[in-house]
Each structure stands twice: as structure tokens, then as C-alpha cells.
């Protein structure tokens, strides 16, 4: 029998041509929460964020929700952004909401890659998706999380 389970879902949709809107959902045997965050595609800057704790463990947990606003203006391309989220929004807010924001943020370049692969395969159907992906990654060094051996 399962003793503990956690599921995390992240979706990304285009809010407009320059902004990707992530929705994150975290559900486990203890916690439940959601997050919506708008990110500027070109520079990874968070332009809007909101989150709700739905199931939590103490009467004070929801005090962490407003602390999420400190993420507005933060760039998901800045060195150390994950550490900053875990410190400023996690340790001083809710570590699980911070986890969910990191989950969304880590998808930024994967979303761009997925779009490029979908477009590449659509335009040139015989071309293998892996070939499109490799070319895209090579042309986008800012997406260092997809090539961690070359990253900071």
C-alpha cells in the first residue's frame, strides 16, 4: 500500500505572444495548492504571480501567500534564481509553494523547446524531433538547463 504520494502538474499556455502563463498544481497526502505565474518569454522575468494553499498543516500557513509577490520582477534567467526562491519565498514563506514556483520556472526553456520541436516537425515531417531539438538547444545557449554540462 502506498504510504505517501505527491503529484505535481505544470501547464503552460501563451497569455499573449510574449508571455507564457504557467499553472502549477501540487497535491499530496498532506498539502494541496495551486499557483499561476506569468513569465516574459524573452527574458524570463516574472510579471505576475498568485497562489493559494488549499490544504495545509498550521493556522499560519496561508500567511505565506502574499509573500509570493516578492517574485514579481525576478528573472528565471538570473544566476541563483532557484536558491533565491527557496530562501525568500520558501524559508520566509511556504517551502511547498516555493517548490511549485521552481517547478514552473524550470519548465520555461522546455516549453520553448517543445514549441520549436512541434513547429519543426510540422514544417518538415520526416525530420526527427531529436534533430530539431539538438539544433534548437545549440542555437539557444541561454537555455542552459537543457545542457547542464555547459551551464553555470
Amino acid at each position: 500500500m502506498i504510504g505517501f504520494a505527491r503529484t505535481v502538474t505544470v501547464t503552460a499556455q501563451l497569455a499573449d505572444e510574449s508571455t507564457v502563463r504557467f499553472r502549477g498544481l501540487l497535491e499530496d497526502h498532506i498539502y494541496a495548492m495551486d499557483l499561476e505565474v506569468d513569465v516574459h518569454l524573452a527574458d524570463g522575468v516574472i510579471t505576475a504571480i498568485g497562489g493559494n494553499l488549499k490544504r495545509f498543516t498550521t493556522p499560519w500557513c496561508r500567511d505565506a501567500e502574499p509573500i509570493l509577490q516578492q517574485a514579481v520582477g525576478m528573472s528565471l534567467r538570473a544566476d541563483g534564481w532557484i536558491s533565491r526562491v527557496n530562501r525568500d519565498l520558501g524559508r520566509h514563506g511556504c517551502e511547498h509553494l516555493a517548490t511549485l514556483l521552481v517547478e514552473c520556472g524550470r519548465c520555461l526553456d522546455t516549453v520553448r523547446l517543445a514549441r520549436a520541436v512541434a513547429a519543426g516537425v510540422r514544417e518538415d515531417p520526416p525530420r526527427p524531433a531529436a534533430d530539431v531539438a539538438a539544433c534548437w538547444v545549440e542555437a539557444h545557449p541561454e537555455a542552459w538547463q537543457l545542457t547542464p554540462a555547459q551551464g553555470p
Partner: protein
Amino acid sequence: MTVEFLRTKTATVEAVDGDRLEAVWRLSDDLTDAEVRLEVALPDLEITAAEATVRRFTHPGYAGAADAVVRVQGVRIGPGLRKIVTGLVAPEPGADELVEGVLEACNAVILHFTLPHIRALEGMSEEEALAANRALVELNPRMLGSCAVWQPGSPLLEALGRGGGGEP
């Protein structure tokens, strides 16, 4: 409006027998389908078996990373885990997600042991809950400072007589 991308992650923990747990992490999204499976020995929380399977990954750099996950065998779930796992697995190109998979599976093991404590709190009076939280933080001092509830000056730490975060 349709979505451009959808990722799901799951982490589960199950008792194999009285001495072992199995933690399984799975990631599935538009580009990737990967799984990490750990066997964890009790009571030391030592990872005694580890394997990763990558069924789909569009970026070819991922292929060799799965083999690197076996290197976490022998590691104990505890302080310094991120640094240790990153050092063992991350040098392989494309290993980033699998490092997170190992860490998230280990985090699920920790939460597996937290769950009974949380359930017990639900039936307690305020006084009993304070006593249980005091026992919890004495057992696991790393709780201090882990989130706003456990920061110095928080209502809970004030109630526990640990307003400054240190010893009462």
C-alpha cells in the same frame, strides 16, 4: 485556449517489508518520460538500490544520464543530500531532471515519515499539539527556519517558548 506544454510528476513511497521502502518518481511531459526507482533501507535511510529509465527524451544528451543514477546507491537520505546527488549524477549531460528525480523521491520518503505526525496532530487539543510540535522540533532541529511557521518570532515558536528560534 489550449496549452503549449503539460508536465506531470508523481512521487510515491511504499513499504516493501518492515526494513525497506521503495520510492518511485515519474516525470511525463511533451518531450520526456522518465522514471527513478530507489530502494531505501530502514532505519538509516540508506539508498540500497537505484535505477532510472528514460523512455522518451527528445534531446539526445539525456540517454547516458540514466546510467549515472546507480551511483547514488550507498548514499543516506539526510543533510547534504542535494550536494552529494548532484556531485554523483549531474556531471553527465542531460542529468538535470534525473537529479531532481532522485531528490524528489528522497523528499517523498521524508514526507512519508512526516505524514503520521501530521495525522496525529489533527485529533489533538491545542495544548497537545504544542507538545507534539515541541517534540518534533527537538527530534528534528532542521525544522527551525524551514518556512515562515518555523521562523524566529513566528506565533508557533513564540507559543513553544522559542521566539528567538534557539533553545527555550
